[in-house]
Each structure stands twice: as structure tokens, then as C-alpha cells.
């Protein structure tokens, strides 16, 4: 099937919160195995777009297909990993118990060790989450999102509040997973992360303003630095 080449195929998605158009006709296509960066300032609609991909947001208009299935569809979610902005964990459980719980929800407790090792938390697995540092919690949250070895991983600003060293480590892991065939959609407002994505989408005022590889976006804006390109391309007043 043609749609099968896309891990995510969202068309003309509109989501209203009261009068505010959080998503104003977004069309997003993410190919299988690519790392797609959603770039935009706070309140641009990144989180709403990601939530609409997992069926947590019911759009007023438009269609969303994930891994070849029209959403909302519960069974597809077994192949999707979702990491929320806030490290969503049970503070009174240990790191391992958290990952094990989400593994059990997806029926994949066999992935617990791999997931904890991937985020370098295997040695701290017995620690109660409440006693972990912010960075460790972020990593634990990531482990929970990928314990079931998803085909599509949705990461909502995974590196907010993470120190530069850990950020580099996390990105190495994202690239490694992508190399093994996982499709990753990651939102961010940090430009140096954007450089590591295969393709970027600039989102603002609920619209996808520009899309392409880093080089394409720089060329389109006619500037050398991504940051400038972003500013230039988003100089569109809200419709």
C-alpha cells in the first residue's frame, strides 16, 4: 500500500480549543525509519499535533493515519511509543518497576532490561523514582516509552531540562534506534537538536510553515544558520 511508506500520515488536521485554532490544517507525512523534527516555539501546536497522533486529541477536521491505520485505533498503539513532556512516572515505584509496568501494559516485559540499559539506568534500577535526579527521571520516562520496541516513537520535547552532555547521549540513542528501523517524531525548540533530524517541520500558529531537510530549509530561507532560517520562515503573520 502507498500509505504504508508513511509511518505518520496526517491530512488537514484542525483542532480548536475554544476559539483558538491549536491546529489549523496541518498536513504531516513522516516516512518510515526517519527522524522527523517538529520545530516551533512554545504554544505553536507541537504537543497538540503529537497528541492527535495517538488519539488523545480528537481533531475537528482532517484525518490521521498511523502505521497505515486510520486513527483512533487502539491496536495500533501497541506499536507506538509516546513520551510526554513531563516525565510521567510513578514516584513511589522504582525505575525498574515503572518500566516493567509499562512493559506489562504493552505485553512486552521482555524489553525491560534492554530499555533500562539503553538509557544507562540498569545500575540504578532499584532506586525509587522520587529519589532520582531530573535527568535520570527523563531517561526513565524514555525507557518506559520504548520498552515495547515500538515502530513509531513520539517524543514531546524529550530534552527539556536535560544537560548538554545527556542530550548528546540521548540523541545518539535516537539515531541508533532510527538506524534499526524505528520511526521517530521529536518535537523541540532547540536548534542544535534539529540539525540531527533527517527532516524538519517548522510549526507555528497551528500551521506547518516549512518542511524539508536541514539543508533544504537553509536554502529555502537563503541563510546559513538554521536559527535564522527558522526566524525568517516563520515571519508569517497568523491568518
Amino acid at each position, binding site marked *: 500500500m502507498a500509505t504504508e511508506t508513511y509511518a505518520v500520515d496526517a491530512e488537514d488536521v484542525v483542532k480548536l480549543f475554544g476559539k483558538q485554532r491549536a491546529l489549523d490544517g496541518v498536513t504531516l507525512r513522516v516516512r518510515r525509519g526517519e527522524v522527523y523534527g517538529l520545530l516551533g516555539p512554545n504554544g505553536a501546536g507541537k504537543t497538540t499535533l503529537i*497528541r492527535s497522533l495517538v488519539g488523545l486529541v480528537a481533531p475537528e477536521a482532517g484525518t490521521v493515519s498511523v502505521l497505515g491505520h486510520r486513527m483512533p485505533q487502539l491496536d495500533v498503539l*501497541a506499536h507506538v511509543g509516546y513520551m*510526554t513532556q513531563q516525565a510521567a512516572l510513578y514516584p513511589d515505584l522504582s525505575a525498574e518497576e515503572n518500566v516493567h509496568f509499562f512493559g506489562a*501494559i504493552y505485553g512486552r516485559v521482555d524489553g525491560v532490561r534492554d530499555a533500562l540499559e539503553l538509557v544507562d539506568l540498569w545500575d540504578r534500577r532499584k532506586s525509587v523514582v522520587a529519589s532520582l535526579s531530573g535527568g535520570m527521571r527523563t531517561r526513565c520516562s524514555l525507557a518506559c516509552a520504548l520498552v515495547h520496541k515500538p515502530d513509531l516513537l513520539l517524543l514531546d520535547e524529550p530534552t527539556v531540562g536535560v544537560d548538554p552532555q545527556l542530550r548528546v547521549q540521548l540523541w545518539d540513542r535516537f539515531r541508533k534506534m532510527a538506524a534499526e528501523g524505528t520511526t521517530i517524531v521529536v518535537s523541540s525548540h532547540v536548534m542544535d537538536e534539529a540539525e540531527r533530524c533527517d527532516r524538519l517541520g517548522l510549526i507555528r500558529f497551528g500551521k506547518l510553515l516549512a518542511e524539508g531537510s536541514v539543508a533544504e530549509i537553509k536554502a529555502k530561507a537563503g541563510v546559513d544558520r538554521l536559527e535564522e532560517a527558522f526566524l525568517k520562515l516563520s515571519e508569517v503573520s497568523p491568518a
Partner: protein
Amino acid sequence: MNARRVEAITQRLLHQFRRDRRTLALLFGAPLVILGLLGYLLRGGGDVPKMGAVNLDSGQLGSLVASTLEGSKTVSASSMSQADAETRLRSGDIAGYVLLPADFTAQVQQHRVVAPEVHLEGSQPGLSQSILQSVSQSFVSLASQAGGVQFTPRVSFLYGGPSFDTLDYFGAAFIGLVVFFLVFVITAVAFLRERGQGTLERLMASPLRRAEIVLGYMLGFTVLALVQSAEVLAFSLLVLHVHNVGNVALIFLLEALMAIAAVNLGIFLSMFARTEFQAVQFIPLVIVPQVLLAGIIFPISTEPGPLQWLSHVLPLTYAVEGLRNIMIKGADLTWSTLQLDVGVVLGFCVLVILAGAATLRRRIA
């Protein structure tokens, strides 16, 4: 101590409350509602206990006592036959009756002794008390007419007995109430924590079905609630020696049903609260009126009419009545009253389970 800093804290608090309309409404509305309810309950001109007067006396004194009783304001007495009185006592229609024997007048005149039989239903100590009091008052007026007489009523109890006290009466209800209340609060708060810490969002983005979430929660908390129910029951029966003539397994069954209802009520109501703080606010709104109206403290039969109607709509009323039927009257599942009680509690369970599951997804999106 710096006055400005203290003032800053005070001001901040008041500002916060200004934004939280709901808490304000509760702070100023709930006391009026609760006190108003209590006032209406106690002064609203509710019914007095019903009793029968069975007069077999061939003399005149019997009818004198009977008419004094009928004129009493603390009970609502009416004359009836002994068979009728016995039937109505068993059905719970009257709380007791006084039997004036055929030789009543003769006994008074010859021996100066009145020893009427007082038959009490006995399951509600408050009502028994009122009846005994009215009966003895009616003999005071007899004594003033017939000269000094000694009053020694022979009291018999259908349920309970002379040693049946207030704890026996409240105990049966509180066994259920304690479990219902604590399980409700714990579930509501746990569910709000799940939402607050973002893990609920994560669960909703997983292949979990909402019925699975509700069922999982229900089973988890039910395990805790059942252990708690068993503990409360054992303590009440073994340590406090609360009166029980019923089947312990039946009490436990009813308690378990209440616990399941409380778990699901907690899940359902937590959908309407954003914070744990707001969840705790459901206590004066949901729990207190039920405690006042479910017949736990005040017998429903003596409530003002409209409140009686309200009482009969509250599920806790049936749970409390069911527990009392088992523990005080020794009811089993062949009794139609207990069938109704268990049926209503069961129906309420199903209702809140469905309501909880139905509200879950909508409130997350």
C-alpha cells in the same frame, strides 16, 4: 518577624481563593447546606415513632391509658387488636405496642400494681426509648386519677434485647460507612495523582481499553478494601462485641459491594476534580449528607416527609438498612427486604462502574 512578609503570604492566599470559585462556594455554601439539613431534620416536624395500644381490659382504666397514649405528642399511638399489633411489629410498621390485659382495672384496684406488657421491635434504641417513656407517662396520669400505683412494665424485644445499646445500633451501620468513606477518598486521590503526574495520559496513549483501566483499579483497591472490611468486621465483633445475630459471610458480602461501589464512585467523581484538594471537597458534598440521611444516626421513619423521600433515593440507605437487617434481625437472602437492599447496592455498583468508564476518555482528551 516582618509584617510585610506575613501580609504577602496572607494576601497571596486570599488571591488564590478568589480564583478558585469552587472552593469559595464550598467554604461558604456547604456549612449552610449541612446545618440547614440538620435543622430541618431535627425540627422539621418529622414523624414521631408509631406504636400500638392493645386494650383487652374489661374495666375503664384500660381505655383511660389507651386514650392518654393516643393523645400523646411524643408517639403516634393507635388502638389495634393483638394479632394486628404483632403483624405490624414484625413488618416494622410500628416500633412497639403496649398490651393492657383483661384484668388490668382489677389489678390496679386490688394490688395497686400495673404490669403491662410492652413489646418492642428493638432494632432502633431511640424509638424504643420514646415508646417506653410515653407508656410510663401515660401511667403517671393514671396514677393521679386512681391513686398511687406501682408501675413495673414487662418489656420484651423482638430484636436485640435489653442489653442492646447505641453502639450495637450504630455499629452495624458504621462497619459499612467506614469502609465506604475511606475507600472512596483513597481511590479519588489516587486517581487524581495518576492524572496529575501524567501517567494517565500515558496509559490513554497505550492500547489499554478504558474498561481495563477501571477494572484494574477496581480490583487493586478492592483487594485493599476487602482486607480493611475484614479487619473492621473482626474488630467490631470480637473486640467491641457489636450485637450480631446474622451470617458473617453476608455482612462481608454487603461490605464488599459497598467497597466496590466506593472505588468506582471515587474514579467517577475524580473526573470532576482537577486537584487532590478538590477531591477532598467531595466529602462535605457527597459523604456528609448521606451520613445524615441514610438512617445511620436518625431513623428514617422519623424524618420530615420530603427528607424521607430523599433518603430512599440514597444508595447508602439501603446498605445501612441491609447491614442492620443482617446483624440485628438475622436476615438472610430469603428475606425480601434484604433482597431489596442488596439489589439496590448491586445496582448502584453497576451504575458507577459504567459512569466511571464512560467519563474516563472524555475527560482526558
